[in-house]
């Protein structure tokens, strides 16, 4: 995925549009992540100022949502559902295969790829489910994931 490189000016522009909305902290953090791929530490103070909340308020929201990240993302991100419905249709196997195919472990990442668990993607009927860079895949196999990652990078 392509993100704008982080800069506080670009971030200010993003925040100008978000801080007036209801629930501005979460919306601002999401907007920053969409723009830059992550929410760096220094953004905490900026969001706090823009939304007129404390740094602690922002820190609380930022750490609560697993989707929000504080370091730059790898080139691709693969998330595999490990919730009950998907487990019952083979997501454990999918995890094992994916770890082999991508040469990395669940919850680990390198510059190129990260594998992360997710708890239900709302796609239970078509499990095992996974997501590659935000794109949802049903009845997923490790090969599907691998191809998609290749296509996307």
């Amino acid at each position, binding site marked *: 995925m392509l993100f704008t490189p982080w800069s506080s000016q670009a971030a200010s522009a993003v925040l100008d549009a978000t801080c007036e909305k209801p629930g501005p902290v979460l919306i601002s953090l999401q907007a920053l992540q969409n723009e830059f791929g992550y929410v760096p530490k220094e953004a*905490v103070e900026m969001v*706090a100022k823009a939304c*007129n*909340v*404390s*740094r*602690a*308020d*922002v*820190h*609380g929201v930022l*750490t*609560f949502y*697993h989707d929000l990240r504080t370091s730059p993302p790898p080139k691709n991100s693969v998330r595999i559902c490990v919730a009950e419905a998907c487990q019952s249709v083979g997501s454990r196997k999918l995890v094992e295969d994916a770890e082999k195919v991508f040469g990395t472990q669940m919850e680990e990442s390198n510059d190129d790829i990260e594998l992360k668990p997710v708890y239900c993607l709302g796609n239970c009927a078509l499990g095992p489910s996974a997501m590659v860079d935000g794109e949802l895949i049903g009845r997923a196999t490790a090969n599907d994931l691998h191809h998609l990652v290749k296509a996307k990078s």
Partner: protein
Amino acid sequence: MTLLIEPDYGTPAGKSLDIVEVEIDGVSVSIPSDTSIMRASALAGISIPKLCATDSLNAFGSCRLCVVEIDGRNGTPSSCTTPVSGGMKISTKSERLDRIRQGVMELYMSDHPEKCAAGDECEMHGMAKTVGLKEVRYEGQSHLDLPKDESNPYFTFDSTECIVCNRCVRACDEVQGTFALTIENRGFESRVSSSGTSFIESECVSCGACVQACPTGALTEKTLYTIGTPTRSVITTCAYCGVGCSFKAEMRGDELVRMVPYKDGGANEGHSCVKGRFAWGYATHEDRITTPMIREKITDPWKAVSWDHAIDYAATKLKALQSEFGIDSIGGITSSRCTNEEVFVVQKMIRAAFGNNNVDTCARVCHSPTGYGLSQTFGTSAGTQDFESVEHSDVVLLIGANPTAAHPVFASRLKQALRKGTKLIVVDPRQIELVRTPHIEASHHLQLLPGTNVAIINAMAHVIAEEGLIDRDFVNARCDLDSFARWEEFISLPENSPEALEASTRVPAEEVRKAARLYATVPNAAIYYGLGVTEHSQGSTMVMGIANLAMATGNIGRTGVGVNPLRGQNNVQGSCDMGSFPHELPGYRHISNPKTREIFEIQWKTVLNAKPGMRIPNMFDSAISGEFKGIYIQGEDIAQSDPNTSHVHAALRALDLVIVQDLFLNETSKFAHVFFPGTSFLEKDGTFTNAERRINRVRPVMASKTGKSEWEVTCDLAAAMGYEMGYENSAQIMDEIAATTPTFSGVSFAKLDELGSIQWPCNAEHPEGTPVMHIDHFVRGEGRFMVTPYVPTDEKATRKFPLLLTTGRILSQYNVGAQTRRTANVVWHSEDILDIHESDAELRGIEDGSWVKLSSRVGETIMKARITDQVPAGVVYTTFHFPESGANVITTDYSDWATNCPEYKVTAVEIAPSSKGPQAITEHASHGDVELESIIRMANQIAANVPTNTAPEHAVAHHIEQFWTPYMQERLMKEVDRAALSPIVIKALALDLNHVLS
């Protein structure tokens, strides 16, 4: 005395007027319908186990320990979050409830240290016992190996003991209003966090509310570990600011373990700030001087002597000075840091034993204009409300005050109101925190140029008059209509419109109009103000302008409105009440009034001088001219705190005898010949009166370290001079105050002990005191409008000194810092810093954090610069907490026309980069007859400020009669070249002064 454990009812008191009856375990209780079941039970004497609830915070419902059963309802609701309703039948005990509670507690205990370092402080083990938990079967992952956060100097955060009940987070949000804490992460990883950094790096202001709220040992005062658990407590009053918080001093033997804010404290209701809560270590600091000392010359070393010797030495010298240079050659200054009783005896000693009225107080340099302005308009010198009143205000107009730094506990209350919807208007040259701070934003910030207060208040009043927003019913019913008519005519003049004044104030006229409309059109609007109002050449005019505004809009005489000076020091109100001003006796009664004098003459068995004595600046001038020879200074470091340091130093050097009574050797004692060691508030027995006129008891928690109470020292000195004032204890002094002062007639230590605190007036009419004043009529009868012409200060930005310096305080330090500099509070603020706007800095090549030279026409000093947008271009700002920076070397001796309160808030300065560090203070010496120069300046200033639409010369003559010493009047009459005086003064001199007064 034993350790006082205050009851915790679990949730805040209900406020509803709808009273319902419920039955709890067979006991019936009548209670407001918005009360929780938990609180209702506690009031019925049935305590329900709880962890996440405490009565200073709203219910949260997270621990599920407080479950109960309700007849006719399914399940087991939590009693903290469930309100009572009429006819409810509740049981708090059953086997099912026991099981649930044990289950919850077992889970908690499986991740809690078996033995807590904090011992009984931790409620967990007690609660486990209460619910009958026998064993913990679970094991596995825990948080027991997390590191401690010791970064705050006063308390520890030990995450291993934390049960994530959120009480600390909620205390920081709901009570303190800082929002410094959060729960980070989620699920098992959830931890309390000061935004991912250590406490000291976080937004935490160290108020201690979270420590107070925490049910476990997770947040604990460090002294609890170093000294041990307390065994007894004494209720007393904080000795820092004018909020006057009540504390439980918790002691172990003779050692103070901690100061815990007292829930029953009228001013603070269980809250505190970093100073009162933690910064009391100065009281036992090794710098404390505890033996009297004397020396012949100020270049000699100090010699420790006995009390008898020191008192005898001082008395002999004072008497010798009087016999050589006259009765009026000595005087004294009372301290607003001391108790009412201590202050009362000092002014009594001066009036009765010295035989003159040369008594003044450090309140001269802070709130004397409040005294003058509110007396003229309302008839008494005091704020009109209690602090609680702010919760009922729709709009708060905050002028020249920075409560989050200077009155933090009031600021927390104000923030609570603002978060509930009260609107805020800030009038301040600086962007103070309340203009925009988490979850709070002022509706208007009128960012005026320093020195233009009166222009702004006139402009607001102009809008109110012009747009038909005057509350005519109130004015007609309550005010002096002649004065109102004169005022209305004056204020409606086009020159008072916001448009006309925009050039002076720099505030856009439309913004002023909007703010004025907002203030005038809500049901309840209140004004709070601080030293940014008083410390100006028109300080008194501004106070009257504020009073006019409140009267014109009917915002006086009920809850939620009023005019409220935020007093700087703990006992400014009290020291003024106690007759510390040279022109008035206790209770603000003029010394020239024979009836008032008679009351005291009978009580004191002496004859009193009917003429006003010298004010502090008069004493300085007179010392330099050689007439004033000896001074007794009670707990005030004038050499650091008073403006134009070089002038003060010259005056002190000129004196033959300087007696200093203080805790520490300070800047002033460098010029002293006698040092009487003072007592800290922990050793005092007496009362302080806070900004709400609330008289609070100060109780000794330890014996005096000097062997004497301060009032005893004063009495001994008076006796050695031949005037006995033998009291056995300070309660007797209060009895004498009550016997001589009508507003205090109902006050006694016994009654204070019974009621907790009393807001004066307390007399036959108001036996339990008066939370809100001027309810049916003003103290002076009818409220009097005063015409308030805007007269720009002579202290103007010039080409040589193009910037305006204004001064203030910060949260962790207190005034001259004698106390706070001797505590760990220096971790937050260890030097005075000069705030400067980016554009001004750039122009002068000044970088953030670099040394700069700050100079005014009276002196120069060096400090570090900080580039910030909190000050506008053209304005710089600093604090005056550290002697090294000597901020007052810069400030001038210009002062308020009516009271001589120094104009600290406006000094024209220039700033330049400096290669040198501090200790490079240069003072410019004053030359010539300074006293005569001051006399001329003061007379002309008075003439410029009295309204010109009624015979102004009478007002000038009257003012001089009332406030000037006979000697100064004489010099004005006889020695001043008429060419130096304004025409109004000349006309005034032609009047028979004595005739005017009578």
